[in-house]
């Protein structure tokens, strides 16, 4: 168990999945999302991978894109990872359910304890889950239902401790700007990083973000991928292979 919050963001590996061409034409267009510049999206994805590897020093694993899975790059939706446990989700859209397979395999190979959702009635989207280091918040949405939230609670029961926390809050003008990644790569003495949407994407929120000291801000852009519904938390899965060290 340890002190809650202490190990938050501890990570050694990041997992991403390449952008298939079908992302431009596929589901996104069908869902009424704006058309997407594939080349730009792939460039953004590449830059993100580069930052994770070089700026943060993470071991980067990249799953190959699959044309049959247009939303495959949004692999944050497919698993909830905390400590040594990975809960493989059950996406709301049946079309996206095959996405979990590749992710499961990769996480298994990294030595994580894999938990599956057996319940046919549960739907869960990984990006609807927020772990604050002390407790889990699960957003009930079109993608995540109550049963799904219960399964999160069951899976991480030993981790959810303490009833009340004095969170300080930082309010950002743009909703999307809140989708940040707080990462503490294993290097000792290095302040934690906050991967956030940069000024090119969301200029209004930059000033507020600058107020955060004690974290190293790493701006990245994903305005093109955003058109497919992606955010920073859905574009990569981060984990630590030594969660307790």
């Amino acid at each position, binding site marked *: 168990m340890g002190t809650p919050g202490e190990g*938050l963001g501890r990570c050694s590996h990041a997992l991403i999945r390449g952008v298939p061409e079908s992302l431009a034409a596929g589901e996104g267009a069908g869902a009424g999302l704006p058309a997407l510049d594939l080349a730009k999206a792939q460039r953004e994805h590449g830059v993100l991978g580069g930052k994770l590897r070089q700026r943060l020093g993470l071991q980067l694993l990249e799953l190959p894109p699959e044309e049959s899975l247009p939303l495959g790059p949004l692999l944050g939706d497919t698993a909830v990872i905390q400590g040594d446990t990975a809960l493989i989700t059950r996406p709301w859209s049946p079309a996206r359910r095959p996405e979990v397979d590749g992710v499961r395999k990769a996480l298994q190979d990294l030595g994580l304890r894999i938990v599956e959702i057996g319940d046919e009635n549960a739907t869960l989207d990984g990006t609807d889950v927020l772990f604050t280091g002390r*407790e889990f918040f699960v*957003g009930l949405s079109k993608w995540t239902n109550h049963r799904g*939230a219960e399964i999160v609670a069951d899976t991480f029961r*030993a981790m959810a401790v303490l*009833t009340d926390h*004095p969170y300080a*809050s*930082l309010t950002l003008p743009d*909703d999307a700007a809140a989708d940040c990644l707080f990462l503490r790569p294993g290097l000792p003495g290095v302040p934690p990083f906050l991967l956030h949407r940069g000024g090119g994407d969301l200029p209004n929120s930059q000033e507020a973000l600058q107020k955060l000291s004690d974290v190293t801000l790493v701006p990245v852009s994903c305005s093109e991928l955003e058109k497919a519904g992606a955010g920073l938390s859905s574009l990569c899965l981060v984990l630590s292979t030594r969660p307790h060290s």
Partner: protein
Amino acid sequence: MTTETGPDSEVKKAQEETPQQPEAAAAVTTPVTPAGHGHPEANSNEKHLPQQDTRPAEQSLDMEEKDYSEADGLSERTTPSKAQKSPQKIAKKYKSAVCRVTLLDASEYECEVEKHGRGQVLFDLVCEHLNLLEKDYFGLTFCDADSQKNWLDPSKEIKKQIRSSPWNFAFTVKFYPPDPAQLTEDITRYYLCLQLRADIITGRLPCSFVTHALLGSYAVQAELGDYDAEEHVGNYVSELRFAPNQTRELEERIMELHKTYRGMTPGEAEIHFLENAKKLSMYGVDLHHAKDSEGIDIMLGVCANGLLIYRDRLRINRFAWPKILKISYKRSNFYIKIRPGEYEQFESTIGFKLPNHRSAKRLWKVCIEHHTFFRLVSPEPPPKGFLVMGSKFRYSGRTQAQTRQASALIDRPAPFFERSSSKRYTMSRSLDGAEFSRPASVSENHDAGPEGDKREEDGESGGRRSEAEEGEVRTPTKIKELKPEQETTPRHKQEFLDKPEDVLLKHQASINELKRTLKEPNSKLIHRDRDWERERRLPSSPASPSPKATPEKANERAGLREGSEEKVKPPRPRAPESDTGDEDQDQERDAVFLKDNHLAIERKCSSITVSSTSSLEAEVDFTVIGDYHGSAFEDFSRSLPELDRDKSDSDTEGLVFSRDLNKGAPSQDDESGGIEDSPDRGACSTPDMPQFEPVKTETMTVSSLAIRKKIEPEAVLQTRVSAMDNTQVDGSASVGREFITTTPSITTETISTTMESSLKSGKGAAAMIPGPQTVATEIRSLSPIIGKDVLTSTYGATAETLSTSTTTHVTKTVKGGFSETRIEKRIIITGDEDVDQDQALALAIKEAKLQHPDMLVTKAVVYRETDPSPEERDKKPQES
């Protein structure tokens, strides 16, 4: 101790009969059945563990005798409470009743108390038996006829509370300390551990396997001591209970862990146990069944930090105490009014449906008590007198801050006690769980469910009846208590025998010091730094709030005593208070403010007959914390003429409470039913509504709160709470910093309120507090009646034939850099014609001036209405 005298056995007979009634039988299981009778479980229990059952009793008897001999040496000790005297000796004089109290180790303690004794008498006896000094965390429960658990109010007669139920009680933890390591004595922690082990086994406190194992292993270490290879052979822990569904695997894990604790004392093991147990998310959560506005079953959990809302097993929302402005209930509805968030404009009120009126009241009481115990430095005095809106119940014990201070003075050597818990938790007792349902086991108690719905009618009338009784009991006492407060010390000895502070210490000096500290509700309770729990929870307040608040309270009280001539003491306006921007202080001040009002009322009432109080209480069974609700206030003004009638009735006929009640109760229902439809009300609501320029709000909060008002006689505020609490991404959780967000500057246009002659309209007020880097708050209450804007504060006081009430409307406007505060007060004076209303008004205005010395009275508008008789005046002070 268990010697049976005549009255004792009589009572016993009565009790033996009671379990025959189906309801009572369901309610009270094992522990309450008299020994050797009826219940098979009780029998088997005794067969199994005869020695264990008797041993502790003997032991504590010894201790008690020792206590007495010591106590006799101290003159102070014997004076404060007759409860400390051995009950048998004085039992001859009084009629006494035998109480059976199930203790935390499932043993039963029997004692006699005087039939008309208050709850405190019994509680003190039990605590003495348990050798417990830090007793404020604990309480006694009993089951009512509906097999619902109720807390025994120490300040009221036992008999009036339990009514026809048997005199069976359970000793339980009432306030789970958030930081058990701060408890002073091991023995207190031991009892807390026993409670938690019971909570775990009954499933009330769910844990994961790992936690079960960890907690179990500490329990074993505390109980069996170090692992001993010779003594502890085989599955030596299988006799003990650790989990609702105990597996062999769990027991093995526990034994593994136990082996590693060599050298750990029982006290240390218990600290470890508690340090882990306190982290459990359901630690100390008192659950109540309810439905949300959509009729979905939820649970409301009350705990040290606030109110939690669960759906199935998930917590779907959380309202910390500072976030809650007001708690109220009306019939079977329970409401909380929520402080607006950083970027939210308005307060919101959320309503829940409880199974019945009584469960709503019970929940409300639990909330009041928890809030007071954990959030306030000293308890608020109960509202007294004539014009009390709703229940007069207030928590009257010590707060956590006070009990910590008091326990810091404990200087007795650590008492010896035997950790004899095993008998409660052994497997040899049946495993069906029923054995653990003590007379008032907490978890099962709010389970009225659909059955409760059926009983709703009964419950409600029962509730009214109980209030009538309470009123009857309290009335004479109250008058005495209204006497000046300075003379307290001798008086306390007689009148507040039951106050918890008296039995605490053996050392004369300590006792005296303690008394000095605690007798006066407003004594300087310095908020010490070791109260870090509080500090930690409230990072937003740089300074500890209480030292500021406390002297202020004292001042206000002092002020009140002096200004005894004024008819009216208008409330302080809200806006200047909020200027501090400090949530906590606000909260503290709210409390102060409330107290202010109540005290004013109290003062007023000292001169009048109190006879119809209870009828009033029954009529307006609706109470608020923080500020008064418009509807309650309106109900009030409406019922005033009627009240007078009632009063004159009772003046001539004496105290006929039940009748007054019956008359009063339905009429109030009619009133409130009619109010909604009243056409003039509808008409006036529109012009009266202050309008605001929309404030730009941008938050990352995913939660949404939609409130829609339903115009129905019940005035239910329909509330829809989205399932998500708050998903603000928050890098600071680990960094531990505070952020102040710059906000877009906010300007508000305030439309000055149109005054109309209908005085019963709900009143609106809005406070805008822009300031340097302060976020503007707009407060808007959704009055169930009209849904209009805010009642910042309403205040009422009544003399024999005169009632005055003040509604304050504070508006703060920012125009290009400087701000203007506009306070509108509406003073409603209701009274008979022979009352000098002009004088009353003059006094009210004078009072208002005193209240805001820096303000200018710019306008006073007077409306006079005869016959229905209220007179309305209005004046508008403006800052120059």
